[in-house]
C-alpha cells in the first residue's frame, strides 16, 4: 500500500468520524484489507455507528412514548376539567331544584296553615254561633216552665220538657263535634302513660255511680305505654263508657279491661257482656255520628268511637272490635312502642 492511498484511507476515516460526530449515523466505511489497523478502525467506527443508531432509535422511541404520555395526560386533564364543569352544572341544578322544592314546601305549608286556621275559625263559629241560640231556646223553655207553670196544661209542659231535653242533646252534639274537630289540631305530647292508674280512676267513678253499681269489674294489671296522656285517657274513658252503657241493661253485667302481649306489642282490650252488635256493621262502628242502636234505647251522639279511632290513628296504632249480638263486645287497640311523631 502506497502512502497516498494510505492518506486517502485516513481521510476517509476522518470523514466518517466527522459524519458520525455531526449526526449522520449512517456513515459507514468499507475496509479493503490494505491495512489491518485502519480496517480495524473502520470496523470499529462502523460498529459505533450501529450502536449510536440503535441508541438514537431507542431514544426516539422513548421520546415518542413520552409524547404519547403527555398527550394522554392532557386528554385526561381535559376530561377531568369537563367532568368538573358538568358536576358544577349538576350541583347548581340540584341547588335550583332544592330551592324550587323549598318554595313549594313553603307554599304548601302556608296553604295547610291557612286551612288549619279556617278550620279553627269554623270551630270557633260553631261553638259561639250555635251555642248562643241554643242557650236562648233552652233557657226560655226552662224559665217558662218555672214561671208560668200554672198556666200550662200537662201537654204543654211535656212539650217544653222535650224541647229542654233535645236542646241539651244538641249542646252535647256540638261539644262532641268540636272536640273531634280540635283533636286534629292538637299536638301529641308523648310521655310515659300509666294506663292502670287511668283505668282505675275511670272505674272508681262508675263504682260510685248508682246507675252502674251493678257492674262486676275485672281489671287486669296493665302496662305503661308511650303516648299522649290526655288522649289515651280519652280512649279508655270512651271505651269503658260504651261498655257500661251497653251492659248495665243486661243481667249480671261485667266489664273486663286487660292486655294481650304479642311480639313485644301490647294490645289493650275492653270487653263487656252487653247487647253487642252485628259484625256486618263493624266498619261503620267508628264513623262520626254513626250509631248502631236506637237513640231512645241508648243515649249518645255517635262521636265517641270516632274520637277513639282518631286518637289511635294519631298514635300510629290500630283499633278494632269483635262482637256477636247479645254476646257482648270486645274493643281492642294497640299502639307501637316507639312513637315517632
Amino acid at each position, binding site marked *: 500500500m502506497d502512502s497516498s492511498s494510505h492518506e486517502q484511507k485516513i481521510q476517509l476515516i476522518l470523514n466518517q468520524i466527522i459524519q458520525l460526530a455531526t449526526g449522520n449515523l449512517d456513515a459507514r466505511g468499507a475496509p479493503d484489507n490494505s491495512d489491518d489497523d485502519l480496517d480495524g478502525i473502520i470496523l470499529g467506527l462502523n460498529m459505533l455507528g450501529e450502536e449510536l443508531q440503535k441508541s438514537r432509535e431507542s431514544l426516539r422511541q422513548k421520546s415518542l412514548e413520552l409524547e404519547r404520555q403527555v398527550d394522554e395526560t392532557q386528554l385526561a386533564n381535559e376530561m377531568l376539567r369537563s367532568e368538573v364543569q358538568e358536576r358544577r352544572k349538576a350541583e347548581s341544578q340540584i341547588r335550583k331544584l332544592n330551592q324550587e322544592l323549598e318554595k313549594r314546601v313553603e307554599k304548601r305549608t302556608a296553604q295547610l296553615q291557612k286551612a288549619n286556621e279556617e278550620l*279553627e275559625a269554623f*270551630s*270557633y263559629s260553631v*261553638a*259561639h254561633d250555635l*251555642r*248562643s241560640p*241554643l*242557650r*236562648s231556646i*233552652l*233557657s*226560655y223553655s*226552662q*224559665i217558662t216552665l218555672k214561671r208560668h207553670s200554672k198556666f200550662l196544661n200537662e201537654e204543654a209542659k211535656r212539650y217544653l220538657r222535650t224541647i229542654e231535653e233535645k*236542646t*241539651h242533646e244538641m*249542646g252535647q252534639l256540638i261539644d262532641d263535634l268540636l272536640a273531634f274537630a280540635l283533636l286534629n289540631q292538637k299536638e301529641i305530647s308523648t310521655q310515659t302513660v300509666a294506663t292502670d292508674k287511668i283505668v282505675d280512676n275511670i272505674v272508681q267513678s262508675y263504682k260510685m255511680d248508682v246507675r252502674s253499681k251493678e257492674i262486676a269489674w275485672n281489671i287486669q294489671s296493665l302496662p305503661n305505654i308511650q303516648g299522649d296522656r290526655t288522649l289515651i285517657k280519652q280512649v279508655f274513658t270512651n271505651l269503658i263508657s260504651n261498655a257500661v252503657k251497653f251492659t248495665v241493661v243486661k243481667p249480671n253485667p261485667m266489664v273486663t279491661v286487660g292486655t294481650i302481649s304479642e311480639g313485644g306489642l301490647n294490645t289493650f282490650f275492653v270487653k263487656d257482656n252487653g247487647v253487642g252488635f252485628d259484625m256486618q256493621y263493624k266498619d261503620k262502628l267508628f264513623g262520626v255520628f254513626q250509631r248502631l242502636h236506637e237513640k231512645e234505647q241508648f243515649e249518645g251522639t255517635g262521636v265517641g268511637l270516632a274520637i277513639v279511632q282518631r286518637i289511635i290513628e294519631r298514635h300510629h296504632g290500630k283499633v278494632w272490635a269483635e262482637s256477636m249480638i247479645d254476646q257482648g263486645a270486645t274493643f281492642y287497640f294497640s299502639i307501637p312502642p316507639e312513637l315517632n311523631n
Partner: protein
Amino acid sequence: MENKTVDILLVEDNASDAELILISLEEKKLVPSIFMVRDGEKALDYIFSRGEFGHRSGEDNPKLILLDLKLPKINGLEVLSSIKEKVPTKNIPVVILTSSAHSKDIEECYRLGANSYIVKPIGFDEFSKIITHTVKYWLEINKTL
C-alpha cells in the same frame, strides 16, 4: 241615664243573653244599675266618654264590665286591650262572658289583663247561678281602687 253612676257596663250584642242576665239578677233580688251597649265601638265610646257619651264625666267609671268577645264593629279582645292599656280605666274589673271555651281566647284575654273568664253555659239554672255569683263577687266582695 249615663249621668248616673253605673254599677255594671254590659257589653252584649245578643238581646236574649242580655235578658237572661237581667232575669237571673231579678230572681235573686239583685238590683245593680246596668248600662248596656251592643257593640264594641259603643263600649269604647262609653268607657272613654266619647261620641254620644262625650258629656259623661270620667269620674263615674262602672264598677264592673261584663264583656262578650264576639261583638259587632270592634271585638271584645280589642275593647279589653283598650281598657287595660290606659291608666284611668285599667283598674275597672273586666269579666269576659262568652260562649267560647277556646284555649286561645282564654290565653289572650288573660294576657290582655282580663280579671275573670267565664264560659256561658246553655242551661238557665247554671247560667243564672254563675251570673249572680259573679255580680255579687265583683260588686260586693271584691275591693277595687
